[in-house]
């Protein structure tokens, strides 16, 4: 401490005006993490195995809570004010973006485990969350017009098995243009010397609440023609409720997670 004071004092009075320094940054690889798409069982007893889980996303950003009041439950009833804001010029509010991997991606969590999405740049800090945009399949992202994902946000395919019944399903999800998904869990202490990777995970089964993407979906009931195939997509009355349920869940942060591995 004393040496620091002496150094500061010396620079103060002899060097005049020194040089400001940017926050320490580190470049970390962001990869696809396929842990979250292993076979799982829904609350209706279906065992679901995914053969494809393609989602179009864009502009990954990583945020720190800063010094925003992180109070205990007992304090929540008290009368404090915690308004929040974004893009604030410089104060210590939470939700501040201090890491990013810009660009668009189509990720197939079922078949592209460990695929590198690129190198993200993060300022050293205690990360608590991440945000990204749900986009749609375009030629810029390598999705050709004949591709079933073209023009859509997500294409999830797989098999749901319950007893003797087996249903092959395809889910096509459309999200509003530029829909931002915020508050995706990302608990990590990143330092300037960090060398690990950031895994981007789709969690078909929420490991905390054990709520799956296909909770309350009765695949057999949706198979009107009993051919063992179900397509769940927008504007189809027979599957409208199922579509909305899956779409709602996919648009919450409960089924995504970023994991840092050193």
């Amino acid at each position, binding site marked *: 401490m004393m040496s620091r*004071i002496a150094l*500061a*004092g010396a*620079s*103060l*009075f002899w*060097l*005049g*005006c*020194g*040089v*400001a*320094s*940017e*926050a320490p940054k580190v470049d970390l690889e962001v990869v696809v993490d396929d842990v979250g798409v292993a076979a799982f069982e829904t609350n209706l007893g279906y065992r679901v195995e995914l053969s494809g889980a393609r989602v179009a996303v864009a502009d990954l*950003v990583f*945020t*720190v*809570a*800063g*010094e*925003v*009041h*992180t*109070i205990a439950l007992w*304090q*929540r009833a*008290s*009368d*404090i*004010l*915690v*308004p*929040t*804001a*974004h*893009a*604030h*010029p*410089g*104060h*210590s*509010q*939470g*939700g*501040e*973006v*201090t*890491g*990013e991997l*810009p660009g668009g991606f189509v990720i197939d969590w079922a078949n592209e485990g460990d695929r590198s999405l690129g190198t993200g740049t993060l*300022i*050293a*800090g*205690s990360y*608590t*969350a991440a945000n990204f945009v749900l986009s749609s399949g375009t030629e810029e992202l390598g999705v050709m017009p004949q591709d079933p994902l073209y023009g859509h946000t997500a294409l999830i395919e797989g098999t749901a098995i319950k007893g003797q019944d087996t249903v092959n399903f395809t889910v096509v999800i459309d999200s509003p243009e530029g829909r*931002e998904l*915020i*508050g995706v869990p990302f608990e990590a202490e990143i330092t300037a010397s960090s060398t690990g990777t950031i895994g981007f995970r789709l969690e078909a089964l929420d490991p905390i609440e054990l709520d799956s993407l296909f909770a309350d979906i009765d695949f057999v009931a949706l198979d009107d023609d009993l051919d063992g195939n179900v397509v769940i997509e927008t504007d189809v009355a027979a599957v409208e409720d199922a579509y909305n349920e899956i779409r709602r869940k996919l648009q919450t942060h409960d089924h995504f997670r970023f994991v840092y591995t050193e």
Partner: protein
Amino acid sequence: MSRDRCSATRYSSRAAVVALHMLACAVTLMFPAESYAFHPEAAPPVVGQVVDTSGAGVAGVAVSVEGSKRHTHTDSTGSFVLTGVARGPLTLSISDPAFEPVRRRVTREQRRVPVSIQVTRVEQNPYSVTVVSSRDSPQTASSKRISAREMTAAPRRNAEDILRQVPGMTLVQHGSEGKGHQFLLRGFDAIHGSDFEVTLDGLPINEWSNVHAQGYLDLGLIIPEAVSSVEVQKGPFTLTQGAFAMAGSADYRLGIVQSERGWRAAYTAGTTNRHRVFAGFSRKAAEDRDFLAFEATHDDGFGQNRGIDRMTFNGRLTLAKAPRFGELSLLAAGSYAAFELPGTLRNDDVEQGVVGFYDTYDETQQGQSGRALLALFHRLDRGRHNLSLHAYASYRDLRLRENFTGFVIDPENGDRRAQLQRTWPFGLSATYMLQLVKTLSLHTGLGLRVDQFGQTEHNVGRDLQVTGERRRLVGHQLIAHTKAGLQWQPARQIRVDVGARADVIHVGVTDKLARGSRGSGASVAVSPRATVQLQVVKSLGIFAAYGRGFRPPEARAYSTFDPGQAGLSEDVYDGGEPAVTVSDALEVGTRWRPVRWFDARLASFATLIARESVYDHVSGVSLELNGSRRLGGEVIISVRPLSWLQLSTDFTLVDARFTQSGNRVPFAPWLTGGGRVTITHRSGFRSGLRAIGFAPRPLPHGATGATQLRVDATLGYYYRWLRINLEVENVINRKLRDGEYHYASNFVPGQAASELPVLHTVAGPPVNARLTVGVVF
């Protein structure tokens, strides 16, 4: 016509007498009857004022009549009234440890008019503190009075610049001269005033819920030449300190120093095409506090987009003055300024030559600031009783158009925004002091402040077209306080002040953007305060102080506005009722003066805030943050080897951190230092040299600012009626990074931008000079 005028004058006088009579009746009801029993046979009271060598009134000085038990103390303006004194000549005795004792013979004839008595400080130290007893306000180890002499020893563009004389205080101008400063003190980033209270002769100046920033301070209303002194109190330790005094407070006291009284005019020309005229008048009689002052300024400013045009008026007029009724005076002030704003610059753009260090990205940034103030002051000193009243009404209009982030939020239209604030504040206050016994006095007070306001904020596009409306809020805010304290002074060597104030806060707003939805709320802040002063030996004094400061919630917190939650983890509380932010502060210090020409002061301080909050410029509400604590110390050494030469140096070290994370509180320097040389020679030659600097500031996200050193100088010559003064800022011409910030920006329209924060700078002034030639008759 003249008869009409005379009639009007007589009518005004009569009205004043009637008003005073009503006041007297009120006072009679309030005070014990025996104290104000009127004795027709009694001699007229002895009325006067005690002033220091600068002409400023000296508060709390004991005035007694030799050979009699009659005595009193001067009030906050240095005035006194001695009643019940026998007719005929008498001798007044002035005693106070900080001043040389004075005996003054007053003849029968001289008693008919107010008596003016000048006192000389025991030593002319700029950091001198009344070690024992100042009846007006208790002292702490860090209390400071900035004298008129100190003010003229350093360059001052405006009233804010006077505060650069305060050890440990850092001022940042992240606009141009017309915009409010950013205040940094003792580990606080008070932003535009959210944690630093400023008063003008006791009147609140902080704008409670300004659309630009909470507690916004714009001292353009105050003409520097009309300031007789500034009383600075670091920390919230005295009962007079109100809302926003979490880090400290400053009370600007208007008046013209004795040497500058009379007709006065000055013209200033500066290297930035600055032209300023000042004119003033004040009567030379020392007991007369009336004055008029006017200034008009044009300045192109340094670099780009820092021009300003401003006019300001300050004046005070004594409406009535009579021993029985006390003194009634009127203070009037008004100002209007139109100015340009440079905004911030990205450091990487400056380094790559995209913009110059003193340039701007957006030449349409500008502001207008207007304010008018009328205040009535009444004071009455009757033996053991002292009553002061004031009432004020004001109008405030502030318009700003700025863009700090470029095209981050709106890549096409840009993030430019226009803000408008209109406020009609008014209030009144009363303080009453009763000397219970010789060693004990009671200090009480009541006050009320009401602001009626309206505020808007719009998005403004590239062609200055309105592209969106962000805020349209109207409402009122009220704060009423009561305070009570005891001052105990059992001996000359010890003084204890203990008390508390309670502030009741009410805010009601209507959000016009939310279909007129209304919101309101109330809260209470109880703030205990205590100080102890102990003169251990003649050369050593010890001080201790504890106090609680507070900041009321801003008005927008009561509206239905929800800025939305982006990227916050789930353990963050996302709503609740607005609450008062409070700080608990402790200070212990000492002053050592082994010889008359040497003075050393040492103070250590601690401030704890259980729930920190920071005003967010974007959402316009306070963000509740984790608790913070500030620990630090300051040392101030001053020597006066010759009667005309004074040297001083100071260092302040503070460790300000959030208690949970251990991270430093951003923006506030952890080490500041200064050195000052003041020369005031009897030949008329005078000069000042000031070097102030600070260690790299901690910025958000782990970034750090640059080391700063700024050297300013003055050189002047005063000869009878002639005043010549040269002011030079930044003598060594360093590239001063006045403001440093760390946030995301993009100043290229239509281009996808990184969201990562980067360093931004607001340039301080390069070397520049101003020459003032003035006359006093």
